[in-house]
């Protein structure tokens, strides 16, 4: 029997634009040795993109490479390569995917060799593993390094001491290093200009994310959401292109709201919204489409997610502030989702369940990620207790295909949807079912 052709993905214009932005960024990276452009490698949470643009660096983000490779089903081999080289099975697979990629010639997701960075800039925000990851790649690149230590919000607040510490590091260590490596003098007005563009994009992004309060929700704030946050979490925040992208995205979503449409999925528009969920935790990238399908097939839409806050929490009011350019960078780093303490995360998730009128909280617990995962079972109970809505827990991994068990995940989801249905019926006022 001839194999059924996979459904062609249906894409909005903004998605096409994003695709070309990403392709351009990789092009810039691949060409860097020829164009003599300096390259910096840095992580997503707490990235200093606007600052790096002030020094004309091309930006390489290892997590983006890992997830892009995972979506192309390449990370399984990379992880095994790293394990063969002595890395434990137990540790974060983002790190191993990156090291495996380097061991296999450092070929980037789109098939060309990534350049050796001129600078490793570790913004150590919200995850301890970053520090070790960074030391591991440094061992191989042997290039100049800079480290920005972002303290954790242990008490759920940014204290003046924390802010001053980050500001001091930026002024006395990071900026001078960037100047030295790039040969470009720091221009604070240039930074302000980028920050202005960031704030514009952030405003539109928040509008888009909050559009999910509509019924039906015009977006999926997790599976679609990861695309929406792509530019702002990575090498584009602060650029004119990103500001334009978000303005266009907002227009598209406004139109969907006006027409009362649901989210766009890879197989077209979602016909009926049956379940509204809040999701905590990163997605699985190796089976992203398959995973998403388990939701939209059942009419489940994610109305809010915490993963779309790892590269910045904007929906509680924070915007990059051009009037306080260095302090605002500090506040941004300090405020990323995984830098928030557990009580704060429980507050946020409960608030999402209530404000987005969700049926409950689903946690996708990632084997790799202690930063997200340690404490999630308590989070689940806490949010259930506060909202009175049922929760569910599934386990997968980010980029290790060995930890995605489709049958298990599907089973869990189906029983969860069943539970929500029952709960709704049980809670329905007398006669409502008639």
């Amino acid at each position, binding site marked *: 029997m001839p194999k059924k052709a996979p459904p062609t993905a249906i894409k909005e214009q903004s998605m096409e634009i994003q695709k070309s932005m990403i392709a351009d960024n990789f092009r810039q990276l691949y060409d860097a040795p020829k164009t003599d452009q300096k390259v910096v490698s840095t992580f997503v949470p707490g990235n200093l993109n606007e600052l790096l643009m002030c020094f004309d660096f091309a930006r390489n983000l290892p997590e983006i490479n890992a997830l892009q490779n995972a979506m192309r089903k390449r990370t399984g081999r990379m992880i095994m390569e790293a394990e063969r*080289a*002595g*890395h*434990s099975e*137990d*540790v*974060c697979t983002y*790190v191993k995917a990156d090291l495996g990629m380097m061991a296999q010639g450092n070929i980037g997701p789109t098939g060309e060799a990534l350049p050796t960075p001129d600078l490793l800039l570790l913004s*150590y925000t919200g*995850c*301890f*593993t970053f*520090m*070790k*990851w960074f*030391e*591991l790649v*440094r*061992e191989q690149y*042997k290039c100049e*390094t800079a*480290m920005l*230590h972002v*303290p*954790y919000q*242990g*008490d759920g607040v940014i204290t003046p*001491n*924390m802010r*001053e*510490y980050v500001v*001091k*590091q930026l002024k*006395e*260590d990071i900026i001078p290093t960037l100047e030295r490596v790039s040969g470009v003098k720091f221009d604070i007005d240039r930074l302000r200009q980028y920050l202005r563009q960031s704030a514009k994009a952030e405003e539109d992004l928040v509008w888009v994310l909050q559009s999910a309060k509509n019924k039906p929700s015009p977006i999926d704030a997790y599976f679609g959401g990861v695309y929406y946050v792509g530019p702002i979490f990575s090498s584009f925040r602060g650029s004119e292109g990103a500001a334009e992208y978000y303005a266009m995205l907002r227009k598209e979503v406004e139109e969907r709201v006006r027409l009362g449409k649901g989210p766009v999925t890879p197989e077209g528009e979602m016909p009926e919204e049956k379940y509204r969920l809040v999701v905590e935790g990163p997605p699985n990238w190796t089976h992203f489409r398959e995973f998403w399908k388990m939701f939209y097939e059942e009419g489940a839409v994610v109305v809010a997610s915490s993963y779309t806050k790892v590269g910045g929490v904007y929906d509680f009011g924070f915007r990059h502030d051009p009037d306080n350019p260095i302090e605002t960078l500090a506040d941004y780093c300090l405020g990323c989702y995984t830098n928030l*303490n*557990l*009580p*704060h*995360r*429980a507050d946020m998730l409960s608030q999402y369940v209530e404000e987005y009128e969700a049926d409950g909280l689903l946690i996708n*617990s990632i*084997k790799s990620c*202690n*930063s997200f*995962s*340690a*404490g*999630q*079972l*308590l989070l689940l109970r*806490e949010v259930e207790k506060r909202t009175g809505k049922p929760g569910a827990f599934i*386990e997968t991994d980010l980029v290790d295909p060995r930890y995605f068990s489709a049958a298990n995940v599907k089973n869990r989801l189906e029983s969860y949807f069943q539970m929500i249905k029952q709960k709704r019926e049980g809670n329905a006022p007398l006669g409502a079912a008639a």
Partner: protein
Amino acid sequence: MTDKTQKTTADISAKLETGNSSKTSLMYRKNLKDIVAYCQELFDDLDFKAVKSWKEAKPGRKVIGYMPVYVPREIIHAAGMLPVGIMGGGDQLEVIHGDAYYQSYICRIPRSTIELGVTGRLDVLDGMLFPSICDVIRNLSGMWKLMFKDKYVRYFDVPQNYEDEIGGKFYIHEMQTLRDDFAKLVGHEITDDDLRNSIAVYNENRKAVEELYAFRAKGPWKAPSTEVYLLVRAGMVLPVEEHTQLLKDYLEVAAVEDRPVRDNCRVVVSGVFCEQPPFNMIKSIEMAGCYIVDDDFMLVTRWLLQEVPISGDPLENLSKAFLHHSNDTAAKYEPDVDKKGKYLIDSVRDNSAEGIIFAGPSFCDPALLDRPMLQNALAAKDIPFTSFEYAENSGQMQPIREQAGTFADSIKLWSA
């Protein structure tokens, strides 16, 4: 520096005699067997009875727990409180509730710590500090806040920037916050002199621990690692003054004890800085033919490598010691790529070790991610090593014994 801040060691020592420390009568007879039995009893006691009796001995006494890897215990002590190291539940605690809080792929120490908490065994604590070591303990601080709302809970951050003007300022401020919080908790100010006194007391303790380690490195048959472990572990629950005395007493009696020398090789054990292996693992390593001559157990007792000055600003002194003279471990960032693993190489040299045993807790990102870098550094110097993983409740020691035995044999073969 003002005159007021210029304290001499003599002043402090004078205060030590009359100070707020709680010298109690010896709980053991001064012979080797009794000292070790006493430490074993403290180790086996999952109900923290020693801590309870300290607390009950005087009304108003308070206790602060802390987890690995390092907190400045001097500040707790200066407030007149007892610092208590919480090292997990070991292999004797039945974890019933704790597993419901953690996925299978997270290490054991947080779940057994939760078990200790929910079963009321930690009720004796008035507060708990969660140091900056990894995301698991970091998140446990938030869990503690949610679960034990009536307790003082603090995530204690330390700088990864080692400049006095940057990381130092941040750290001094964090310590000051701790000092202010503790002052509120105990209802009185913690003066600079209180802190200086505590620094002096801990200097003495650090010196005693160092002497114990040096004594073992010199003649490991005279101080088996099982004993050294128990002795240092006793320092997690005893008042520091008593602990120092205990170490001194042990050193005195162990020096004159006649013990047979075995044909063991000399190893450094690395990676045991947080979740503790079962006590049997330490035994097994020794029985397999390895003398442990250095390790990273309970680094809090050896974190600061030099005597902390007593004169001057006490918090500044603690900060400088932390930034410039502190131990290395996976929880710390190494700014200089060429220095990665140097501390292990130094330890091998200083302790005349012949190899390294990497023993890391399963699912421990810091230990396991650090390990390949440390191994590369060792390989470059032709230092042999072997590696395995454990959990605090691992039951089967046979594989570890065999691996350590093979390692010991191969070392002997190489050096033959």
